[in-house]
């Protein structure tokens, strides 16, 4: 006996005989069982279509077609959102926190050691007991002490307290000595001209900066 529609109905209503129930159960749990056979030879596909039409009639009326988004879209959406978030955070941080990148701090509080600073395009040896800083935005250098300095680019800075501009040519090294304010209170010499300072002063500079 092959499993058919009437048999399945009686099984579900609990109206089949023991032998019939056993066969149905065998069929249900057997993967190799033959495909469901229609007793009256009805076309399986037509039956499938009828069943689907029945099911479909139960669905809601307004079944709009929803466009499916690609994964790339979602990736970009996420990326843009993240960027906007960081930009906003960054701007807030920039406005809220003091602009330390524009100011190069060169202070050296040591009484004996030379301090090396490499920052914002400047390479500086700062002598002991020197207070100095460079404001890159305002193009000002403040100095009380002595430094050996070289800049990556041509730059002109105002030396605070002297009213004078100092010019650094890219890649050249300069020695600047200033321990007082005043228009003439500074000595700035290109390292190549060191021999034109008094020999006694050269020795002090050589010893200080280990040139």
């Amino acid at each position, binding site marked *: 006996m092959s499993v058919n529609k009437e048999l399945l109905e009686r099984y579900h209503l609990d109206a089949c005989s023991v032998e019939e129930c056993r066969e149905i159960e065998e069929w249900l749990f057997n993967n190799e069982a033959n495909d469901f056979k229609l007793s009256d030879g009805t076309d399986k596909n037509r039956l499938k279509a009828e069943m689907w039409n029945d099911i479909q009639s139960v669905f809601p009326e307004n079944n709009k077609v929803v466009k499916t988004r690609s994964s790339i879209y979602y990736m970009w959406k996420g990326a843009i959102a993240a960027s906007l978030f960081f930009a906003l955070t960054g701007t807030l941080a920039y406005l809220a926190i003091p602009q330390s990148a524009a100011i190069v701090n060169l202070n050296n509080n040591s009484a004996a050691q030379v301090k090396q600073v490499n920052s914002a395009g400047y390479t500086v040896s700062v*002598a002991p007991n020197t207070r100095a800083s460079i404001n890159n935005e305002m193009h000002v250098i403040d100095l009380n002490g002595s430094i050996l300095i070289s800049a990556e680019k041509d730059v002109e800075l105002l030396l605070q307290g002297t009213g004078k501009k100092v010019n650094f040519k890219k890649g050249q090294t300069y020695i600047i000595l200033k321990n007082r304010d005043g228009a003439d209170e*500074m*000595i700035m010499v290109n390292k190549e001209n060191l*021999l*034109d*300072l*008094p020999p*006694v002063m050269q020795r*002090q500079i050589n010893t200080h900066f280990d040139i």
Partner: protein
Amino acid sequence: MLATSKKYLSVVYFITITLFIIGCGGIQKDKNKPANYSLYVLAKDGKNYLMQDATLDSGVLKPEAEGISLDTLRMGRSLIIRNHSYYYLNSKTSQFTKYNVSGGTLKILASLSLRNFTIENYNWLQGDTLLLTGLNLPGYNQPEFVMVSTTDMKVIKRGNLALPAPSGKFVTMSIGFTEKRPNSLLIGYTYHASQGIYNFGTSDTLYVSELQYPAMKLTSTAKDNRSTYPGGQNTVQSCTFLDEKGDYYFISCPGIALGNRPELPSGIFRIKKGETAPDRNYFFNISASSIHNHVYGMWWLGADKVIVRTERRDLFKGLNDHYKTAHFEYHVLNLQTKAIQKLNLPLDKGTRKQCVIVQGNTVYIAISSAKDGNYIWNYKVSDHTLKRGLKLTDDTDFILRIDTLGK
């Protein structure tokens, strides 16, 4: 038609080849000329260049194109030059090196190690022996001497000079001259106090000691407070000479860029032959003369004449611009009559330079001026005339040395 264009091509080809040969031939010719003079230049690009030339009377030199760049070779301008060789002590690497120029490049001939020493003066002794006097490193407070054989570049002897060490507030000293006599050395010096990196003080007194040679033992010390900062580093600039009578002359420079006691006068002192102290009856006071400024260099012209290089206090502001403002003048002085003749040269820049060569009646003077370019001027002593000689192109910032290459 074709034949004509072929003809034109051959002519062009011929001319090009000819010009090429002439051009190359020119360069070849210059290389074969003997080099008699050496020039050391600091260019505007910040590099030092060494050049040699057959003549200083004419021509044009372009340092950046024709000079040997010394940028990486670390040879400074405090040089000893003799017989086509250059001697330089790099106190940082402790190498005392002998170089020459060969095939257009600087070549190391030999090198010796000279630790913890810095040169103040040099003297050539008999043969090719070099006597160096200087100070210890890093203290700069113990005078020392080193005798070097330059033929095989070996230290013959090294030791202390028995000069009185700095004491009290004085922590260092400057040795301004070392005059070699048959059995003794006359050494001129003074003492300095340190005032941090920004300043220094100098004793108001200059000293001259006599030491036995070669024992280097102290026999006498004379003090003179008419001026201070006697002589200078003769590796950088000339400031002393011995005349044909055997009398020794030296300058004193308490100017701000040397002795730093500008209120004291600059002048020329004399130590007579056979004596060991400055002549009390001789002092050519330059500050009190019509020059009225400090003297930084002196070159002997023969007999009683010298050329001096003096600053102009009214033209510079201070130590910051002393070396880069053109304010130096040259004067011919008669040491006996005290006559002064100013040389009509453009104002020169550079605090200390070895910039004068005296060859008989001809004197070459290297001038780096603000508006008149860089030239070697030719001065004739007999008729006091000046004319421009060799030109250095505008990439030159300072002509730091001119030297003869012979003995």
